[in-house]
């Protein structure tokens, strides 16, 4: 699971994240909505240990990210907005490389199974990644998370630039992940996708988590209305 305890971050005079208390349980998909500069990426980066908090703690599976930087990363996987892999490697080679860096070494057949499970067509497994589309690279990113058997998945704008069918396919993968017991935190602008896939939705503005709702509570229209009201306030 992912836990933020009074987690805060300031850059000079600007408070990127006001003290945040949030827990994302295993099997849960939490969609963090908000405009640019709301603090979504800062929150993700704090869980990843890319930046150090000014106060509070970020916990991954009960371990403090600040004091256990390497241990916490064994439990989590990260899919950035642009999943950039090594273009001179094929899909399966990239998966082998990053999963082994993550501490998991699998035989070739298992790696290919992960790629297939992630939705990457078999014909693409041995192609150089330099020829992959964004969706294909994201699938390799998902496969890396599967290979690591990650307990937490952090995603930053994962559906940005994907066409509707790729976006839908991606949502299905997230549900699969959650069904395995992983905690998923997804930062996104995509209200529709957030409503479709998330268990809970949070709306962030100016570094504060303004609302937390269960996705089932609201319709798409209500969610959009609440979002716009929050932004206008």
């Amino acid at each position, binding site marked *: 699971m992912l836990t933020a305890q009074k987690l805060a971050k300031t850059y000079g005079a600007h408070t990127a994240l006001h003290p945040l208390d949030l827990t994302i349980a295993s099997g849960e998909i939490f969609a963090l909505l908000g405009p640019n500069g709301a603090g979504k990426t800062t929150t993700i980066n704090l869980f*990843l*240990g*890319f930046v150090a908090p000014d106060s509070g703690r970020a916990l991954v599976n009960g371990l403090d990210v600040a004091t256990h930087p*390497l*241990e916490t*990363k*064994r439990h*989590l*996987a*990260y899919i*950035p907005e*642009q*999943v*950039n*892999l*090594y*273009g*001179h*490697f094929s899909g399966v*080679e990239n998966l082998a*490389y*990053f999963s*082994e*860096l*993550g*501490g998991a070494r699998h035989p070739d057949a298992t790696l290919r199974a992960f790629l297939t499970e992630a939705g990457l067509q078999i014909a693409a497994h041995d192609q150089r990644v330099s020829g992959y589309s964004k969706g294909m690279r994201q699938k390799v*990113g998902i496969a*890396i998370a599967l290979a690591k058997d990650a307990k937490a998945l*952090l995603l930053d704008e994962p559906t940005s630039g994907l066409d509707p069918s790729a976006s839908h396919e991606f949502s299905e993968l997230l549900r699969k992940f959650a069904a395995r017991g992983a905690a998923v935190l997804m930062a996104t602008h995509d209200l529709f996708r957030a409503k479709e896939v998330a268990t809970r939705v949070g709306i962030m503005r100016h570094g504060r988590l303004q609302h937390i709702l269960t996705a089932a509570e609201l319709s798409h229209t209500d969610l959009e209305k609440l979002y716009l009201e929050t932004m206008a306030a």
Partner: protein
Amino acid sequence: MPLSSFLRLEWRHVRRDHAFWLTLALLAAALVYGLANGFAWVRFQTEAIARANTLSAQRLAAAHTDAAKFDAAPPANLNPNLDPRDARGFEFSYLRRFAVLPPAPAAALAVGQSDLLPSIFRVTYRPRESFLNSYEIEHPLRLLLGRFDATFVALYLLPLAVLVIAHGLLAREREGGTLDLLRASPLSLPRWLAVRFALRGGLFLGAFALVALGGWLAFGGAPAALPPVAAWLALALAYGVFWFALAWWLGARAPASSVSALRLAGAWLAFVIVLPAALNLTLKQFYPLPSRAAFQDELREGTDAANQRGSQLLSKYLEDHPELAPGPVVANENDFFRTRFAINAELERLAAPLRERFAAQLSRQQTVIERLRWLSPALVLHHESLRLAGTDRARHRDWLAAVGDLHMRTVDYFEPRLLRSAGFRDFDGVPALAFTEPPRSSTALFLALAGLLLPAVLLTALGLRALRASV
């Protein structure tokens, strides 16, 4: 993650890195070419020395043969200048005594200025400047670039190759977009990057060493040369380590790979070209060599004056004794030789202080270079490579001193014999060169290695600190 796993993962990258293999191949080709050039030059020198020695032996054998022949059947009206049994005839027609400086066992590694500084002199009793006339006495760094030999490749091309394969390794990950995935992995980025450098550096320098050693043996390098070759290799590898360490430090601090490359190129320019050139100019400014033209003019004036006095002496003598002119050759020629020796002594007296001034200034320049070479790793490598190859100025200077000594002994040997002239049989007694190779201490090598590796260690530590702060 164990080190072996890191290395195995990085090997996957290196295997696919075309720039790495292409750069390595080009450097290897350059090294082989450099070695070929070095061996060709050594072969040229060795053949020239062999020809000189052969000529010397042949003429000596001819002296023995002709002396025996003329003893058995004295020819009528034999010109004394062609008679080996006459000291003057032997000296003029048969003696071809050469002082040679053979190439040291590892000379093929660094030609240095051995292509400018003569290694063969035909030493006679005549003034030294008559056979030392092709001596180039500019300061040691005049021709910094030198020949395309193995040391040239190490000095100039190895750092450029390091620039290509090692610049901005971290920045390239950032620019390629893979840095975030790496940072999200449970690995220490500084350690991961250190392994990348270590593997690339180890492969690259290891291949360089193999090609150098293999090339040396393939070109027929003498087994006796293996110790100095191994020492040179250690130096070249230490030099490579310095450049990898510099790339590490610059890469740890550079925001972009292009910035890292530019800074590394700037460092190459500074250490390999600008600093040595600046030292060159400093030497010219503060320790200028006396004008060679003035030296030649002074010598020529002295020669003319001495010759003039000699002619006056001989003219006076023949005026006073007309019955001796053209007269019997013996009396005239003894005066000629006596006058010749007097003129030669006068020329030696004139030339010696001029030579001393050059030598002293050259020595001061050399002292400055010895002290200031630590400013640049290129100067350290260059200086020590020449020393190991035996193509340094110090060895040539020692040999020239031995040639000077041979000249004086030759003058002392021939003066009484040329005046006595007839009844000469001491064909094998003519003085020979007594040159002992100066001992090579390993202290200089260890100092040079320290001069290269200590900065490398410092740069590595600084780079690690910068990396830890940035990631």
